[in-house]
Each structure stands twice: as structure tokens, then as C-alpha cells.
């Protein structure tokens, strides 16, 4: 049998999600952002809410997220995504609103906006892409950088005496009465990807049910920033980030 005979609509099992644009991703090979973008696009497509979704992109590697997911976007100042999302959701309560933020954006400069949006129980979805580093600016320390982790601003490793402790912002968010669903996921293999997609779907459904804020932390790799190969980065993540940032639900109300 010729290959051409197999390529038929009725045999199709998987295709490019129509909510992803045709643009080529600018992310480094091995980066987690692209996979997470795809999962968001798939959930939006499957829930048929492309025209009802408004997203907020951060300052960080994913500043251009609007180039890839074909929905309406607002681009926020560094750290302010949750404040924008609050404005959108309060004034357009029938829209699905999500923010997409790095760990520096969400948990350093944007800590106040994040915590207060979660604490007010805004009916939004917050996606935290935790690569334990400032990727965009060249791999500096973030509040979520591990103790001992080498970055360009901690060239001898993060020292607690100097920089304090890695901030478990997701655990903090789980403590707040305004959050309904707080989970920590990853996308380094097929099983993890499936779990993250399920979490995203659940978070969007929580918004529709007005249950409060859903926060999904995706523990992610940044092989460029960590100066590792893509496979080496996934291994480093499993060996070092997962023990400190254990995967699973922290809260499901």
C-alpha cells in the first residue's frame, strides 16, 4: 500500500490545533513554552471558546505569546498581568480570562498583583511557567531559583544568606481563600503533557462555574538559561526542581 492511500481525512488521528497560528515559535528548541501554548490552544478549541477568551501575556520569554495562540490578547507591563486580567474579567464577566506568566514576572515584580488577584478570588486562570530563572534577560536569578543554583547573577550558586529562600509562590496561593484550584504540573513527557492539559481544562471550567482563581504552575525547562542540552535540562529538572517543587494538586475545591 502506498503512503498516499493512508493520508485520508478518515484516517486522521492528530493535527495542528486550529487555534494555533501559522507563525514559527521563537522559543529555543527544548523550551517548555511551546508545549504549554499548544495545550492552551487545544483546550480553547475543544471548549469552543476562541471568541470568548481574552488572554494576558507577560514580560518575559512569552511576551509574544499572542503571536501563536489565535485569540484576543493584551500585553501587560512586567508583573501586572493579574491586574489587567482583573480589569478584563470584572468588566467582561462572561469571558474566559487567563494570564500567562514566568516565575520572575509572577513572583518577583508581580507578587502583589498575583496574590491580591488570587485573594479576591478573581474568576481567572493563572498559568505560571516556572523555569526557576529569568530566561528572557539572559538567565539571572529569580525568586524561584533553587539554593545553590548557578545563574548569571548567582555565578557561585544562590546563597540563602544573600538571596533568601526560593519562593514557593504556588503553596502561598493555595493558602488563600480566593483560590479554588492550585496545581503543579510539568510537560517533559507525554504523560505529564496529558495531565497538564487536564488541569488547564479544569481551570477553565472553574472560571465558568465562578469558583474563584485557578493557578497552574508548570515546572518547566530552560536549557539555554541553564546551559544544558534539551535532554540534559529535562533530567536536571526531574532531579533538582521536582524534589523541591513536587508535582500534583495543592488544592482542589
Amino acid at each position, binding site marked *: 500500500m502506498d503512503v498516499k492511500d493512508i493520508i485520508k481525512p478518515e484516517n486522521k488521528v492528530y493535527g495542528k490545533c486550529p487555534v494555533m497560528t501559522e507563525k514559527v515559535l521563537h522559543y529555543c528548541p527544548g523550551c517548555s513554552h511551546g508545549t504549554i501554548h499548544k495545550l492552551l490552544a487545544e483546550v480553547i478549541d475543544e471548549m469552543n471558546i476562541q471568541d470568548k477568551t481574552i488572554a494576558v501575556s507577560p514580560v518575559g520569554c512569552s511576551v509574544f505569546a499572542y503571536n501563536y495562540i*489565535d*485569540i*484576543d490578547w493584551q500585553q501587560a*507591563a512586567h508583573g501586572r498581568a493579574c*491586574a489587567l486580567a482583573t*480589569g478584563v474579567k470584572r468588566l467582561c464577566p462572561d469571558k474566559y480570562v487567563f494570564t500567562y506568566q514566568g516565575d520572575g514576572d509572577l513572583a518577583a515584580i508581580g507578587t502583589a498583583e498575583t496574590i*491580591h488577584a488570587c485573594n479576591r478570588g478573581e474568576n481567572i486562570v493563572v498559568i505560571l511557567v516556572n523555569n526557576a530563572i529569568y530566561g528572557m534577560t539572559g538567565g539571572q536569578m529569580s525568586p524561584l531559583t533553587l539554593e545553590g543554583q548557578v545563574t548569571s547573577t548567582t555565578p557561585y550558586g544562590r546563597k540563602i544568606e544573600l538571596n533568601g529562600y526560593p519562593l514557593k509562590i504556588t503553596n502561598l496561593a493555595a493558602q488563600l481563600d480566593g483560590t479554588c484550584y492550585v496545581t503543579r504540573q510539568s510537560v517533559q513527557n507525554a504523560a505529564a503533557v496529558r495531565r497538564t492539559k487536564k488541569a488547564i481544562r479544569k481551570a477553565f471550567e472553574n472560571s465558568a462555574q465562578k469558583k474563584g482563581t485557578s493557578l497552574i504552575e508548570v515546572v518547566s525547562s530552560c536549557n539555554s538559561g541553564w546551559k544544558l542540552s534539551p535532554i540534559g535540562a529535562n533530567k536536571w529538572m526531574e532531579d533538582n526542581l521536582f524534589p523541591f517543587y513536587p508535582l500534583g494538586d495543592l488544592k482542589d475545591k
Partner: protein
Amino acid sequence: MAEKLLMKGNEAIAIAAIRCGCDGYFGYPITPQSEVMETLMEEKPWETTGMVVLQAESEVASINMLYGGAACGKKVMTSSSSPGISLMCEGFSYMAGAELPCLVANVVRGGPGLGSIQASQADYFQAVKGGGHGDYQLIVLAPNSVQEMYDFVDLGFELAFKYRNPALILTDGVIGQMMEKVELRPEKPRWTDEEIIKLHGSWATTGKTKDRPQHAVTSLALESAVLEKFNLKLIEKYKQLNELEVRFEKINCDDADYLIIAYGSASRVCEKAVELARNEGIKVGLLRPITLYPFPTKAIQDMVKQLKAIITVEMSAGQMVQDVRLAVNGAIPVEYFGRLGGIIPTPEEVVVALKNIIK
């Protein structure tokens, strides 16, 4: 006859917001303007017009909530006083860069730093020269009565949407706190979703439908050539503002040899000073800029030939005087008189200052 009510300047802003179809107010308390949010909370507009009122965790958050709402094509506003406005400057720059309309009221108090809670005009530079980063301008309106506090809410929204640019009401603790009669204007309903799509559907994030491309509201333009083109577009917008939107008031100017230039509460003091000086035979007039940006440069230039000298009266260390000097370009002397720290000059003091430039 139209209804007239006695109210504070700050209350007038709140009542006008509800009545002119504002969709959302986001704010953080600070003296001397807390009555704006307090009045809104008391009026509960969410039960009548559907307007949202939310107390934010900071001024940084409130201006960014405005960004979110404005990008959806909604009429959004906030108010604050000087220290809070400093925190909003990042947001002004982003909103000007993303071409988003919004209305902000700055009920100015004395500075720098925590300063005082008394009235001041020391935020003129911040309002008209930037405050935030990058080449941008705010549309700046300067009311000098409680009626204008009321009217400039609607006017501010109108200009903000016409030019897709943040508009600022630059007022102070005196006008915010004083009570005067206000004539209520006819109510305007909030825009419906359909109206928003009709009016702002070419850019607002109203949800991507199959019949149009995605809207991404952003101020990011990494390519220099793209950003330069955008900067030039903004310059063109500001040029239009200068051609079409300059507003000012002239009092006793026709035969004037001398001119006082003052805005906001200082202009109220100067109205009296003009009266006192004219009683003494000094031919003096008052020019009151109503828009501080765009500034009434041409109106001043048109008067230079008839004048011997100009004096600005400001509750600052002399900020607007620089724009007047630029307009006059050395043709005649331009002096400044002011009181600082929250002290309001008296009409008598202004007359003395005027006599000093005459001799």
C-alpha cells in the same frame, strides 16, 4: 430647569462618572481625593448602571486594571493624588504606547515625597512632560470649579476615546474639597456590547470571532523601524491635539498691558487679583489654560504684541512658566509668582507680585 446640587469637587467626579456611562472605576485611597471612591461605593452604581467599582491593592494595580478594561473598549477611570500618580506613571506609558483611552484624576497635594495633604500644583511637569518613560503625552485638563470637575469627566472620556490616549484631570485639594453648585447634565447610558464592537471593534479585545483577525493590544515593537513609525504616528496624534483641542479662558484681556497666566485654583485667586489691580488702574488680564496639554501656546503668542510683561501664578516652584517662556521666546519679560508647600497665594499677594514686574 436642570437639576443643581451642592457638592464637593471630588463628589462631582464620582457622580459625573456614573452619569456619563463609565464602565469601571478602580482606585486606592489617598487624601485629598478619597471621597471619589467613597462616593461611588455609597452610590452603588453596579445596581443602577452596572458600573463596576473596585478598591485595588495599589495604584500600580488600579492603573493596570484600567489597561485591562480599556483594552476591551470600556470607559474606565481612576483617581488619586500625587504619590499615587507617581506609581501610575508606568501604566500611563504603557497605555499611551498601546493607544488605550482612560481617564485619571490627580487631586494634587504638596510634594516631593509624602509632602503634605494641602493643595498644590507641583505635579504640572509630571502631567504635561511625561512622568513615565518614552515619547508620549497625556491629554491634560485643568478644572477650576466644581462644575468643571463634573463636566471634565465626560469631556475627558470623549477626548480619550477620540484620540485613543489616556486623559488626566489635573486638579488639586482645594477644588477637590470645596463645595459649589453643580448643574447635572443629561445622563448617558453605558455602551452596550454591540455599541463597543461598532465603535471600537477595530482594535478592542472583544473576543476573536471567525470574521476578523486576532486583536493583540501591545506597546511592544522590537524592530526599530516599526517603533519609529509608531513614534511618528504618536507625534501626528499630538499635533492634531494641538491643532484641534486647545482650550482656554480669557478674562479682561482686550485692553490688557499685563497678563497673568494661571490655571486651576490659582486662576480663581487671580480672577480676584485682576479685579483688585484694575481698581487701582492697572490694565491686567487673565489667561487661564483649560487644557495644559495641549498648551495654549498660540493664544499666548497672539497676545504678545499688546503686552508689556507676563506673570504666571502657580502653586509650585515655577513649572508652567517654562512653557509660557517657550511660547513667548524672549519677546517680553515672563515672570513667575507662587506659593509652595500647600499654601494658596492671596489675591493681594498676586497684586504685589504684579506691581513688582511693572516697576
